[in-house]
């Protein structure tokens, strides 16, 4: 298992060399998006709209941060940020892949429909340590702007920020079709029958 330090925007060759189980540290721009921001993007594209940002080579972080706004300067600052459960964003992987997004960062893994989309668009899924906002917040250097906060609220809005030394992130799904979460789920599922029979605690 290898460790990579990668700069965003990412190229296809950066992603193609990643294998499930590798460790990644990122530097550059991050776009936060969770349920509602993905929904907003989808609606925009469905209505033949164009998103203001070029997402080619970019990273989406499944996260809903706490942000403070300086009343005088209008500047944003991250108070707390960490990954949310990525599985809810499963239906959107193909959509963001078509827009050129190269990595999705989140927690808990994604399903095999994402694995397929990642193969198709040369993408990877990176697992960030869950519940570790104090650590992740330190890696965010700047918040530049946001989309839709007034409409969908602070956690659901899309925040555009800069990160440095953001990690360790574990490659959970690579662009070659390996999905460690699904592999683990399948092998543990096969064990259930045998393990539930090994019982010592008697009912009578």
């Amino acid at each position, binding site marked *: *298992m290898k460790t990579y330090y990668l700069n965003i925007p990412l190229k296809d060759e950066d992603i193609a060399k990643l294998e499930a*189980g590798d*460790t990644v540290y990122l530097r550059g721009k991050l776009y936060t998006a969770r349920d509602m921001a993905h929904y907003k993007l989808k609606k925009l594209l469905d209505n033949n709209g164009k998103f203001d940002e070029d997402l080619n080579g970019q990273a989406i972080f499944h*996260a*809903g*941060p*706490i942000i*403070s706004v300086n009343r005088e300067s209008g500047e944003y600052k991250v*108070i*707390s*940020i*960490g990954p*949310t*459960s990525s*599985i809810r964003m499963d239906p959107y992987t193909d959509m963001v892949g078509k827009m050129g997004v190269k990595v999705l960062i989140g*927690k*808990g*893994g994604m399903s095999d429909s994402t694995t397929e989309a990642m193969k198709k668009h040369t993408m990877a899924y990176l*697992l960030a*340590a*869950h*519940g*570790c*906002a*104090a*650590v992740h*917040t*330190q890696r965010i250097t700047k918040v530049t702007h946001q989309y839709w906060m007034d409409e969908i*609220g*602070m*956690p659901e809005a899309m925040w555009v920020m800069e990160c440095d030394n953001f990690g*360790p992130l*574990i490659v*959970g799904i690579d662009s070659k079709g390996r999905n*460690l*979460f699904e592999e*683990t*789920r399948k*092998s*543990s*599922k096969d*064990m*259930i*029958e045998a*393990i*539930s*029979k*090994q*019982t*010592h*605690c*008697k*009912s009578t």
Partner: protein
Amino acid sequence: MDYRQILRDLIFKISYEVSDDCRCLLNKAVEIETDESSKMILETIIENVNIAGECKQALCQSPGYLTTYVTFGDDFFISDLDQILKEAVIDATKAGYLRPSMVDPLTRVNSGDNSGRGVPNMEYEYKKGIDYIEIIPSIKGCGIELYNKVKVFTIPEMGDNFEGIKKFVLECVVEAGGTACLPSAIGIGIGGQLDVAAKLSRRAMSLRGWMQRNEDKRLAQLEEELLEAINSLNIGSGGTGGKVTTLGVNIETAATHTTLCPVAINFHCWVARRAGIRIYKDGRVEEISFM
């Protein structure tokens, strides 16, 4: 006595400090984990606990859902307790410890300060003869809530030696996978009707330390057996393989009707954001340990 200040401090504290049992279990977990990825996750978790505690910074960006357990007797009560807690939550939100996340369940409109109908949730229990009030606020994460389950078993479905129940628990754990913010704790409520089992499942892991076994020997054995069984599934802290999937399994039971056996499985992320105090009638304040 300034109850307002005491309770405000308590709510602030649970946003940046895990309970003592959780810290101890995480330190043990990182020692025994051999899977490289899961070990790395555990190391980051411990680093996070240290930074959050030292810098008084939110442990997790998600404020989860707060339930406060209150035990009281005949002699002493704090009037307006629910109102005081409501204000403490709003203060913690304004101070950046809790992200505004409470919304109307149907319209999804966010109140902006974590206030709303029915929150923070309060669970009261009357105990005869005590001269104190015990207050345990417990914040439980919500991502994993998607995998909680209640099943009302028939007697044949329970199986010999609880095999049916055991299988149900293991299936829930596998289905949840890494989404459970592993290593998790699992509360299991058995008995009553559906609502009783569900409430017991949350109480089981919120009020009792994750290393404390049930006083009933048979239940204690079942807790240990389930813990061992779950950790042999090779799911690990990252959901990508490993030895430590769950830190503790706590079971609480209540009598039920002869026709059925309701079982509720409730997952808790590793972030044990809870603390407890006892305030005595004479003014003494004691902290509760979960060890």
